[in-house]
């Protein structure tokens, strides 16, 4: 057995080398780097202590971006726990077209974020898009907008694209959860005289606790790490005028984009790292908070 243990160390070595060397080490190193004044190229200048963090917490562009991430989470939370859950419920039966419906509903998950971003941007375009003509065709011409050009609507358009993408995974997770709910449980409830809604509310929902936990933790991660779709649709400054800026996009722009117009004047690597550390802390607290909350509820449900 002793020989086995030393063999296991060799088994672990390549993966640990890659993982520690290229994920954990740079991640940990970013913490001290965020305490300095460093543009990203050239020498590391003065030690600033927590100044970068203080600046980030006073940076209105970053704080507004954080608020946009919160709205993204709230919208995704409401959307998946109604629409995706409902779709999963509708798919939780065997019938001819079930697998076809499921394959189509899951499709957005395999499309690249580039494709999703372009499709949404051009569908919503006031010149060549199809949303405005569609509204006109059904007699709702008064609702046509410039969508992504209007600061009032742009963020919600971007959020809709995220919802379109993540409905796919949320629905199949809920579907898998529903299929693990013991049939006898529901049948017993029915024979006790419970209606469809009561069965759903008092039998299905409690039994779905693990799926709620999975989906909602996933959504926290999705909403606070969000970058790609927003970057494709509205670019590095969250056009128009920062209305769709997300934290991830702001961090990227501060680290690399030379013309980070909407954001603060400090365009530097160390500042972006400080923002990144703040984002990591937020994400960590939310993800582990939710996990332990759902973990408790799961235990109570048993």
């Amino acid at each position, binding site marked *: 057995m002793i020989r*086995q243990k030393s*063999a*296991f160390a060799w*088994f*672990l070595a*390549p*993966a*640990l080398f*890659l*993982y520690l060397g*290229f994920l954990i080490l*740079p*991640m940990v*190193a*970013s913490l001290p*780097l965020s305490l300095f004044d460093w543009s990203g190229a050239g020498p590391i200048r003065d030690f600033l202590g927590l100044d970068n963090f203080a600046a980030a917490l006073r940076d209105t562009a970053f704080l507004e971006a954080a608020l946009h991430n919160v709205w993204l989470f709230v919208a995704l939370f409401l959307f998946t726990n109604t629409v995706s859950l409902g*779709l999963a419920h*509708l*798919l939780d*039966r*065997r*019938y001819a077209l079930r*697998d076809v*419906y499921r*394959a*189509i*509903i899951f*499709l*957005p*998950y*395999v*499309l*690249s*974020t*580039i494709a999703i971003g*372009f*499709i949404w941007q051009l569908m919503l375009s006031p*010149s*060549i898009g*199809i949303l405005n003509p569609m509204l006109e065709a059904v007699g709702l011409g008064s609702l046509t907008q410039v969508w992504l050009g209007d600061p009032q609507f742009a963020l919600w358009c971007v959020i809709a694209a995220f919802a379109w993408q993540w409905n796919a*995974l949320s629905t*199949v997770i809920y*579907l*898998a959860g529903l299929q*693990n709910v013991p*049939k006898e449980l529901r*049948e017993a409830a029915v024979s006790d005289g419970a209606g469809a809604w009561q069965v759903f509310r008092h039998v299905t929902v409690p039994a779905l606790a*693990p799926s709620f936990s*999975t989906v909602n933790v996933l959504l926290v*991660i999705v909403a606070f*790490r969000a*970058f*790609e779709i927003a970057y494709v649709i509205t670019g590095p400054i969250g056009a128009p005028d920062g209305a769709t800026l997300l*934290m*991830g996009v702001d*961090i*990227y722009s501060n680290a690399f984009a030379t013309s980070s117009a909407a954001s603060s004047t400090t365009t530097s*690597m160390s500042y972006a790292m400080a923002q*990144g550390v703040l984002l990591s802390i937020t*994400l960590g607290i939310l993800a582990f908070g939710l996990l332990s909350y759902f973990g408790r509820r799961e235990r109570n449900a048993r």
Partner: protein
Amino acid sequence: MPGDPTARVPPRRRLPAPRSLPGQALLVLACAVVLVPCYFLVLGAFKTVPEFFSSPFSPPQSWGLDNFVEAWDEADLTTAFRNSVLITATSVLLSTACACLAAYAIARMTRGANLLQTLFVAGLVLPTQLIVIAAFVEMRWLGLIGTPWPVIILYAVYGLPLAVLLLTGFFRTLPPQLLEAAAIDGAGAWRQFALIALPLARVPIFTVILLNSVWTWNDFFVPLVFANHESLQTVPLAILNFYGENTTNYGLVFAGVTMSAIPVLAVYILMTRQFIGGVVAGAIKG
């Protein structure tokens, strides 16, 4: 296995189900919401620019492949596809190989297994932006900027959490007696792994390769940071840059996007069930 309809045993007594007409209608509506944008994309790939304005809904006047040919040349998709294939293949093989070894060790260890697993799973939670930016500093320090290695290494690293998670889960289900029997016959840890455990893990290994390949193929954040030269571009990045240069040539952009999606769609259509099953398993264990 979740999502496998055959897993549900057939006495098909159903609960009172409102799934008949309104249910079907809602599902058709949901599918339409998914398919209309895709329809818009694919039709657009064949259209000329004036057609976008004159007839937004109708099919293109000709189904010629001019847009595809032109987009392929102008966006230099030959280079981009070659880069994407090489980067995806190398990084997925590297991370799958490392993950197989690590997952087997974690599954068979008694002490420290949970700690190691938590360490790898944490990678699924960390914000991509910070770890990529921090890795950029490290890669420049190593002098690797301007080579394809940063992208390959980082994709291999970012593929590890899911791979370790899924494969550890599988190796834990192997009966220990199987491996003990081999040990009695004199097989060391390496031979137990290579001759017994690995061949049994073909299906989960395939799932891991499938999921990580699609993710790597589609991602553009890592190359956005590292592929600072046209010769290093992957397909998504080439399309993004192409769009930046041809903002109003919609037909070409759509043709480019369509071509970038074809390989993934082909894989998805051929292997829908494995794909959905694997994604769900990964999400639930994460």
